[in-house]
């Protein structure tokens, strides 16, 4: 025990450990050709320079190691830094590679602890380029959509009020109705089979996704008064509770 504690009876903590989750782009490599990597990486960065400037990055060597392709860790981190990115981790490396990375002060991440939507796909970089300009406009409706009214959205359609019987809402993208849906709702009207319909109470006259429809007679009585989503699976409309 140090005597300091006696001199300063109250010692407020200067630090604290907390756990936090961050979303960091992962660079999944499928080639060990450093020239090609440098070239392609710089191309990607050029697409969204603002997004990538000084962005932290984890590089993933699992794919390479599966195919027994070795890579020069020091040279790779140099390339990453030259592209304006900051390597902060290695993933999927073998013991040798992990040791080299640690020597370069780059921590090792386990592949099992990370969550990734499509880690199987050998993608160079996860985030989409230029997210702002690429996004399709969402249409937001806050007033009830009454009988006889029609609404068409070229992107997603979000409705915060009810949709009356005799009203028709259409979207090229998804439809969200945070209230009772009594009218006709058609999502993916330009043929997008991945479009979905979400609503908090399904009493619709008709629902359709990419031209596949159900009329109210086909909609089971049981689905009412609870939030559901509707999507397309093998050309059939699936209605499922949102829990």
């Amino acid at each position, binding site marked *: 025990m140090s005597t300091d504690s006696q001199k300063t009876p109250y010692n407020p903590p200067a630090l604290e450990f907390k756990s936090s989750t961050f979303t960091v782009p992962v660079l999944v490599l499928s080639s060990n050709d450093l020239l090609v990597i440098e070239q392609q990486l710089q191309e990607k960065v050029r697409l969204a320079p603002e997004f990538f400037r000084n962005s932290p990055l984890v590089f993933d060597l699992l794919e390479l190691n599966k195919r027994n392709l070795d890579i020069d860790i020091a040279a790779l981190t140099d390339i990453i830094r030259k592209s304006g990115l900051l390597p902060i981790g290695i993933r999927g490396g073998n013991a040798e590679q992990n040791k080299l990375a640690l020597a370069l002060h780059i921590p090792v991440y386990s592949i099992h602890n990370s969550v990734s939507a499509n880690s199987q796909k050998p993608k160079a970089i996860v985030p989409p380029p230029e997210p702002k300009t690429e996004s399709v406009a969402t249409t937001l409706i806050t007033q009830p*959509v009454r*009988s006889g009214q029609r609404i068409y959205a070229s992107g997603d359609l979000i409705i915060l009020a009810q949709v009356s*019987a005799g009203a028709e809402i259409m979207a090229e993208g998804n439809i969200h109705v945070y209230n009772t849906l009594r009218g006709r709702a058609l999502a993916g009207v330009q043929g997008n089979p991945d479009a979905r319909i979400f609503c908090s109470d399904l009493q619709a006259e008709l629902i359709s996704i990419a031209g596949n429809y159900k009329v109210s007679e086909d909609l089971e009585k049981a689905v009412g008064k609870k939030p559901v989503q509707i999507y397309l699976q093998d050309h059939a409309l699936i209605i499922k509770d949102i829990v």
Partner: protein
Amino acid sequence: MARIIVVTSGKGGVGKTTTSAAIAMGLAKKGHKTAVIDFDVGLRNLDLIMGCERRVVYDIVNVINGEASLNQALIRDKHCEQLYILPASQTRDKDALNQEGVGKILEDLKKDFKYVVCDSPAGIEKGAHLAMYFADDAFVVTNPEVSSVRDSDRMLGLLSSKSRRAEQNQEPIKEYLLLTRYSPERVKLGDMLSVDDVQDILSLHLLGVIPESKSVLTASNSGTPVILDEKSDAGQAYADVVARYLGEDRPHRFIDDKKGFFGKLFGSK
């Protein structure tokens, strides 16, 4: 600031004219200078319910055509001196009305009156459109049956898109629900929608429920708005409506069937 109230419905015969007469009288009796206009050109009958049909000289079409001044055409009510009636023409058709002419009349009335009540014809044609175009508030008159509710819903769609307020991107028309000819016994038998059913479908602020009542017919036969019959249930219900519209907090009445024991057990809340 004067307010223009349109009394409207999609379906005909639901009680718009009865309501227009009652609330115009109610507002006037509370001391607010009020004018009530009959937009049902060709089917004039507001003046009958107001009991002034034998004093009609000029009508709204004469004013629009410049054949009479507004002051010449306005008829002062015989029960209440704060109330004036602008009758419709019996001899013309709806095409005699136009937006410019109606707008001018309403602008003039707003200078002098606190409330202008517009009795709209049924349907979604010209007369109905003109009655609601300039409105600040809308009383949507609905009977507790599916077709009436559906037509009211359609009317609400038009109010929110085809009015001057909508076109000029102003604050939308304030919409109120008035459920008329309500019969708790028939609701219980399942012949009629309940207050809750209707509100669930329309999701609109409920201004009042007017019970189905013989007093309405008696009142219209004698040319006195039913609100003046203070003993009648319909008269009291309309008085509540006026008070609520003016900001008073009054509990809803005439919704439950008081006669039946089962009404209390199974009736709508």
